[in-house]
């Protein structure tokens, strides 16, 4: 579960990226986080992953208080989260299988556990037949599915995706979102940041809109509501 209470975030440069954000995400929810460029979406995500600390206010993620998080607890917070980026961030020299297995190995899983779990997750994202390929031999959509498999591999409570479809064409984007929806149906909370109105409109999900560091709308049903407030 995620809770932000009256959160402010100012960067060292003086930019005030968040100005009093309050947000609650319950376990099992699927949420779109939308907003124009520079509105503070990535800042929220970096607060959730412990990359940044709030300047003011309270950030609670899966039982961890980010404001008071000790350095050595950061890895354990991150093991409750699966993070996906716009640019996939796969290791080019490793195969699809190794890219996914790697994420398990670095949190101390045994070779046995890895052998059991990786095929299952690759199957879930529909890439079993490409396990031996390298990332650069795959399409963008397939690469993002590898990244999703990697995010899922350690069985996180929540998937956080920062513009996961930013580099993909509409058909691939839809596939990725549907995959996230299926993962959500299996019990994992999903928080997806996106710009794509069409895409958001195809899913009747909760949409949180942010602008200028403030939440301006939080409704279940679609993107248009956020637009209505803008105009």
């Amino acid at each position, binding site marked *: 579960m995620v809770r932000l209470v009256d959160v402010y975030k100012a960067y060292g440069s003086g930019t005030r990226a968040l100005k009093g954000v309050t947000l609650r995400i319950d376990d099992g929810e699927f949420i779109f986080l939308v907003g124009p460029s520079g509105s503070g979406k990535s800042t929220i995500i970096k607060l959730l*992953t412990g*990359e940044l600390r709030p300047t003011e206010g309270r950030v609670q993620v899966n039982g961890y208080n980010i404001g008071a998080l000790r*350095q*050595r607890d950061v*890895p*354990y*917070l*991150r*093991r409750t*989260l699966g*993070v996906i980026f716009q640019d996939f*961030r796969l*290791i080019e020299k490793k195969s699809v299988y190794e890219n996914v297995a*790697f*994420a398990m*190995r*670095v*949190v*101390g899983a*045994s*070779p046995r556990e890895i052998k059991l779990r990786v095929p299952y997750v690759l199957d879930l994202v529909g890439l079993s037949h490409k396990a031996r390929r390298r990332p650069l031999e795959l399409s963008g959509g397939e690469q993002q599915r590898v990244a999703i498999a*990697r*995010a899922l591999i*350690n069985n996180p409570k929540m998937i956080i995706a920062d513009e996961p479809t930013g580099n993909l064409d509409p058909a691939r984007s839809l596939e990725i979102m549907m995959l996230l929806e299926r993962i959500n149906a299996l019990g994992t909370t999903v928080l997806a940041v996106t710009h794509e109105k069409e895409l958001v409109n195809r899913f009747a999900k909760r949409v949180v809109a942010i602008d200028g560091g403030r939440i301006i709308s939080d409704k279940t049903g679609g993107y248009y509501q956020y637009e209505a407030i803008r105009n």
Partner: protein
Amino acid sequence: MKRYETSYFFREGIRGVFLHGFMSFAAVGVIVACLLIMGSFALLAFNLDAIIKDIQNNNEILVVLDEGLSREEFVRFGTTLSGRTDIMDNIAEYTPISKDQALADFAEKVDEEYRYLIEGFATDNPLRDRYVVKLIDVNQMQDTVLKLEALNGVAQVYARLDIAQNLVRLRNAMNTISLLLILILLAVSAFIISNTVKLATFDRREEIGIMRVVGATKSFVRWPFVIEGFLLGLIGSIIAFFLQWRVYALLTERISEGLSGIALIKTVSFGEILAPVLGIFLLAGFLVGVGGSVLTIRKFLRV
């Protein structure tokens, strides 16, 4: 740490050594050079120390008489000496050695094939009559030597004390140089290792970033690099050890030759110091390798 983790760290560390082949080669080369220079100086100082102790324990001095003394005068010197109680106080015994005897003794030490050269001296002996004097108290050597030199018919007194004093000065200088070298070279080695590891971490910064995102602990990220540094240090120190063995043999040969004119030099054989040298080399390699890499990665892990 679990076994499969340890084996993973080692695999990654070894991969790193090969992946950064040129830098690894440079790092090992520098470690070898540093350890060799350091080791050679330290071993030289160590040998000098042994020689000095040997000389100081040897309480014989050589009193060489004037040229052209008659047989009678040569014998009479002994009587004169025994009459001087102030000198005899510090003399345990003295042995007259005529120049013919000295030549014969010398000939015996010379190899067979060169002995004909000595035989050529039989009619025209370049050596002089001498007395070998054994002292009671080495600490009063200076005083005794001065008194002996003042005696009539004495051309020169050869006390190894002079040699010892010169060697002490040499050794002290060597010790200072060794210490300075050790500090400088350790720093240089650590710097090179640190750069190798910096390159390694830079090469894999994306991988490190991903590891951090999926929840790897800092120590997990650090281990492969620590092992890479450790392996570089280990390889360097082992190569340096075997080279040192060779270099040491050459070095001690030179010393023995160089000093054989003054004293019979016994150098310490490498076999005797094998274990400590290996131990110190391994320790130095370990410190430099692991230290260099740990310090470097620390900067890279601040995310």
